[in-house]
């Protein structure tokens, strides 16, 4: 018998590693991506100890991206994307995230190949704000980002990439990666809570102290990571952009970030390792999020996402 393998044409716009685990085009529905919610396991179905209202984030939706005065943007291919939309006003940058000021989409997976050394997420995406007032609105988006939530036999760790668009309305336009600054305690990380759920390094997207220049306890700036994404000249215009993050799970370090036509070498930088949590060993959850920097709805649109793994790198494939 002669076997013939053919790939879906939509994969052509990605650069997956050897084994494609997930190829999600949101024209086919939600594909198991949903709102990130806390563990409602305590008295009254309340969440785990945290100063943050983890059940408040804006819900994800399948979107054709309709606008105020423009026609629907649709998506990069087909009609629909996965839209993450905030639902409440931001607090000042230096404070803990306000309820509803983020929208967080997660897909829950687990490891399959113990010898896989590399994991990679790729996405075609866009982002904007609601056109509820005049102006461009780029400085009303605080951040967009992605992280892998990973737990192996020894550690829980979350390689995280964050694009800071704006801090308190001032443009930043720089990439960060998740790595906790020296000397940060659990109390610092959890906004004064001694028994907070988040260990330093876990859930950096809403944990740790933040500073007016866009920095924070949970992040360090990507070397040379200044980049102007294509926000366009009006909030009703979406341009689809490419994102790729490559991680070495055996050495527990970042490898590479690609954003549009720029690639940042992250080799040798390790995310912060936390002790394992109960019941989640071998978990691998990809997570995207958007955070508003004002009282305006900020949205991130995912056209499609590919998650792939490999035991070794064929550099021609990756680059």
């Amino acid at each position, binding site marked *: 018998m002669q076997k013939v393998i053919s790939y879906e044409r939509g994969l052509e716009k990605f650069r997956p590693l050897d084994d494609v685990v997930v190829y999600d085009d949101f024209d086919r529905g*939600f594909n198991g991506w949903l709102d990130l919610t806390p563990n409602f396991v305590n008295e009254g179905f309340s969440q785990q100890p945290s100063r943050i209202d983890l059940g408040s984030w804006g*819900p*994800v*939706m399948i*979107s054709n991206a309709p606008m*105020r005065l423009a026609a629907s943007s649709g998506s990069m291919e087909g009609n629909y994307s996965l*839209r993450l939309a905030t*639902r409440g006003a931001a607090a000042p940058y230096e404070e803990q995230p306000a309820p509803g000021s983020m929208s967080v989409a997660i897909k829950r997976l687990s490891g399959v190949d113990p010898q896989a050394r590399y994991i990679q997420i790729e996405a075609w995406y866009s982002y904007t704000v609601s056109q509820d007032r005049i102006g461009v609105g780029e400085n009303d988006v605080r951040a967009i980002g992605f992280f892998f939530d990973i737990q192996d036999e020894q550690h829980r760790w979350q390689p995280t990439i964050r694009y800071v668009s704006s801090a308190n309305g001032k443009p930043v336009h720089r990439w960060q990666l998740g790595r906790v600054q020296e000397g940060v305690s659990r109390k610092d990380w959890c906004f004064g809570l001694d028994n907070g759920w988040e260990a330093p390094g876990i859930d950096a997207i809403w944990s740790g102290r933040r500073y007016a220049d866009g920095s924070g306890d949970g992040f360090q700036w990507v070397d040379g990571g200044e980049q102007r994404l294509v926000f366009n000249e009006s909030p009703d215009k979406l341009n689809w952009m490419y994102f790729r993050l490559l991680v070495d799970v055996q050495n527990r370090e970042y490898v590479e970030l690609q954003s549009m036509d720029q690639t940042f070498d992250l080799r040798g930088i390790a995310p912060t390792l936390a002790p394992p949590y109960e019941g989640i060993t071998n978990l691998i959850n990809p997570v995207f999020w958007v955070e508003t920097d004002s009282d305006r709805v900020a949205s991130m649109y995912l056209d499609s996402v590919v998650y792939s793994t490999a035991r070794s790198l064929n550099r021609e494939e990756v680059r």
Partner: protein
Amino acid sequence: MLTSITTVVERRTVFSADGATIPFEAGWAAEAVFFVQAEAGHPELRLTVEISPDGLAWTPHSETRVLTTSATLAAVSASHFGTWIRLRIDGASHSQPVTLLVHLTLKG
């Protein structure tokens, strides 16, 4: 087989005035049902589906259902709603707030 989803548009949100659920895009769906659950001791609530061309300007699109003070769950449905949909919730006040759990079920 149709596509369907249940999402939570308000998760224990406290309403202390007339208000509405978060604007939701559902252009792919043909039918929608809002389920409203109120914690005990709530005022009478009037529930009306609203639709919008852009997520900014809203107009009523359903009959108004009443969640009486003794009821804990009500449902309001809609079809031909275009893309943007939300539920208008009237009756809460500062002196009589209500904590609501609102599911939205979509199918299309």
